[in-house]
């Protein structure tokens, strides 16, 4: 590889051609401050507008300062990252940014986890000449949706959210609007997120360096519910939460904290601590059966069967196709997501079991996701206005609850989930990573179709972090073509190929977030450190390996509920409780016939 030699702060280094000054400096331990710059290596996430100008450095013979994040190293370059000129410029630029940013850090959801606050601390900002009489501050309406709060007064125009929404997710809900001082990232006509094609994937929130985009906080409602003696609180925890929550308490990324998590939820006072993994196994039963059903019909000669079958566990993905590909809404599995299956069972089967009225049960989910908040608010998941899942909180919100309750998380003894909705398999854990749902489905489908035990349980060919993957699984002679996409831009690619008849998949798994739920928008913020995401990914598969049972259909509690309550997968009761339907949400412009 071609290299270039240069000097940074009097230290000679050699780096591959094309390396930015920022990366080169990082490689020798020089930490140039940044704000707008954001990258997730290996996950195809890049935001390099070179706009905030915090990272400027002095390059000899250059007229002005150079942004380190986008300036490539050149042979013989002499770079100074800490001259008086540089420090003064960075500090002044920071003062400018802060002069158009509310100083309400004490009440800000991002306080303590804010990249701008970190910079203010680092530069020791004590007073600001650009605040006060005669200096205008931006004034925008704060907007609250079921999942996301947008307070654009705090926006620093790093454009990370715009990049995620348009390039990573190709959702197009957000764009920079206006210009100059009033320029900001917003929806079309500043309309409400719910009127936009927003999927509530929350990737904008996951990357926002400040408190401009945050999740709707349900923790106060949960505290109230727990404290209410007339309410039974039931909590479920999604697979990806157990491999990330530890980070919030100083544990190594990739620590599996299932036992402590259970203990913490019990310590918080939830009446029943269950596992979404349980309903993930249930999902496999329903979705797997649906897949087998469609396949059998198709192979039997009925070419009108909608194929490929698409997974439907990811609520952001569901929103995506409802908005962008409504004409394909017959393709996804009608199976509800594990969160909603859990809610439906909890408020029927389980409520009956403990003799609790539906209205008296508060069903809470802990999710690595912000779209889950939106999902549980959808009308079709309510019975007489009462939602199957009352509140969905993120991994971060749970961490806050634990901290608030002064629970010493790291030293908690491991505890087990309650029964009956707490028993699960390794197939359910891997729902948390891209490719996991389809792998779990294949494990079950294989044995159901062939009636033979799997020769090898690990389908390595379905794993990985590449955006689009495909594999052909030999199911005893039947070649099953599987597609996998994560990140909605990859999903779009696959959908367009399907539309154009360019690919012949039988089943496709789609997850909205890059990497799957492990990098969901509700997870602890990784601030662009992709090693964290990779550690969670590894932990998911480790957790799978550590499970005694690794196939959903072998989950005894699942077998029991079919026997006891549901009958058979995709049967009458299942359809009533565990399946749903989709809507066309695309905005269309029609002729006004009114006048």
């Amino acid at each position, binding site marked *: 590889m071609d290299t270039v030699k240069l000097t940074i702060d009097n230290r000679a280094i050699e780096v591959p051609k094309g390396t930015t000054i920022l990366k080169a400096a990082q490689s020798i331990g020089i930490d140039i401050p940044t704000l707008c710059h954001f990258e997730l290596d290996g996950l195809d996430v890049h935001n390099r507008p070179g706009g905030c100008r915090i990272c400027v450095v002095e390059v000899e013979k250059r007229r002005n300062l150079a942004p380190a994040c986008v300036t490539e190293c050149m042979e013989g370059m002499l770079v100074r990252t800490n001259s008086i000129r540089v420090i003064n410029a960075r500090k002044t630029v920071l003062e400018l940014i802060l002069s158009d940013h509310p100083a309400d850090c004490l009440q800000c959801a991002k306080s303590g986890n804010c990249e701008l606050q970190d910079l203010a601390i680092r530069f020791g900002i004590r007073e600001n000449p650009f605040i006060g009489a005669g200096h205008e501050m931006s004034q925008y309406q704060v907007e609250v949706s079921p999942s996301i709060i947008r307070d654009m007064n705090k926006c620093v125009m790093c454009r990370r959210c715009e990049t995620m929404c348009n390039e990573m997710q190709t959702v197009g809900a957000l*764009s920079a*609007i206006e210009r100059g001082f009033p320029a900001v990232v917003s929806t*079309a*006509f500043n309309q409400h997120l719910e009127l936009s094609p927003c999927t509530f994937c929350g990737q904008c929130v996951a990357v926002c360096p400040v408190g401009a985009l945050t999740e709707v906080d349900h923790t106060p409602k949960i505290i109230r519910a727990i404290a209410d003696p007339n309410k039974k609180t039931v909590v479920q925890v999604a697979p990806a939460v157990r491999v990330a929550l530890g980070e919030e308490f100083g544990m190594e990324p990739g620590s599996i904290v299932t036992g402590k998590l259970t203990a913490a939820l019990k310590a918080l006072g939830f009446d029943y601590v269950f596992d979404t993994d349980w309903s993930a196994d249930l999902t496999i039963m329903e979705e797997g059966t649906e897949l087998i059903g469609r396949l059998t019909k198709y192979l039997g000669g009925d070419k009108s069967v909608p194929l490929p079958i698409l997974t439907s566990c990811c609520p952001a993905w569901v929103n995506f196709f409802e908005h962008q590909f409504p004409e394909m809404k017959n393709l996804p599995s009608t199976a509800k997501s594990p969160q909603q299956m859990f809610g439906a069972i909890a408020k029927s089967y389980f409520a009956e079991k403990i003799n609790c009225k539906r209205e008296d049960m508060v069903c809470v989910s802990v999710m690595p996701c912000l779209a889950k908040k939106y999902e549980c608010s959808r009308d079709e998941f309510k019975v007489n206005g009462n939602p199957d899942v009352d509140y969905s909180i993120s991994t971060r919100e749970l961490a806050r609850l634990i901290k608030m309750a002064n629970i010493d998380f790291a030293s908690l003894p491991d505890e087990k989930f309650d029964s009956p909705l707490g028993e699960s398999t390794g197939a359910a854990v891997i729902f948390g990573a891209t490719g996991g749902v389809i792998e779990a489905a294949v494990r079950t489908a294989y044995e159901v179709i062939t009636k033979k035990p799997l020769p090898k349980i690990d389908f390595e060919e379905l794993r990985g972090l590449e955006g689009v993957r495909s594999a052909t699984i030999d199911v005893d002679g039947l070649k099953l073509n599987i597609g996998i996409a994560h990140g909605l831009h990859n999903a779009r690619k696959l959908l367009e190929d399907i539309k154009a008849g360019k690919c012949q998949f039988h089943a496709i798994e789609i997850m909205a977030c890059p990497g799957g739920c492990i990098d969901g928008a509700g997870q602890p913020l990784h601030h662009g450190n992709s090693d964290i995401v990779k550690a969670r990914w590894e932990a998911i598969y480790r957790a799978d390996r550590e499970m005694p049972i690794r196939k959903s259909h072998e989950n005894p509690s699942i077998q029991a509920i079919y026997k006891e309550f549901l009958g058979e997968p995709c049967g009458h009761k299942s359809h009533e409780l565990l399946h749903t339907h989709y809507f066309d949400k695309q*905005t269309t*412009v*029609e002729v006004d016939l009114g006048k």
Partner: protein
Amino acid sequence: MDKIIVKMKKEVREKVVEICNSFNNQPGELINVLHKTQDFLGYLPAEVQELIAECLHIPTAKVYGVVSFYAFFTMTPKGKYPVSVCLGTACYVRGAEKILDAFKKELNLEVGQTSEDGLFSLNCLRCVGACGLAPVAMVGDKVYGRLTPADVKGIVDEYRNLEANA
């Protein structure tokens, strides 16, 4: 949540679709499409932007991002007699601000507003290139040069009379 349906007049819809088609519905032609549409309608209301987004297969937010970026595009209809005061440098140093103030007073409008009867709208522009006539104002396509604040009432009255005699 229900599907969002935006309504508009048949002839507007047909014309906008025709404009988009004339540019092969290419996303790169957005600005040309917006120009043609504004030529036709006089402004770019939200529903028209939705339709353009649909035709060109780009997010509505991006269309709005472009419309709100460029000064030439407007989402409010202009008056029948749009008044534009040049605030280019040449006009500025020859007292354009006073001319603008006089128009504001005479029309009782702020910059960017349209009168309630829809007759007048007031805007600023940067250099019409008639610097020799500075300060300059335009009403529609007609240029008024070498203005003094005292001329303003006469100009406005010219159009008021036109309207009264119409």
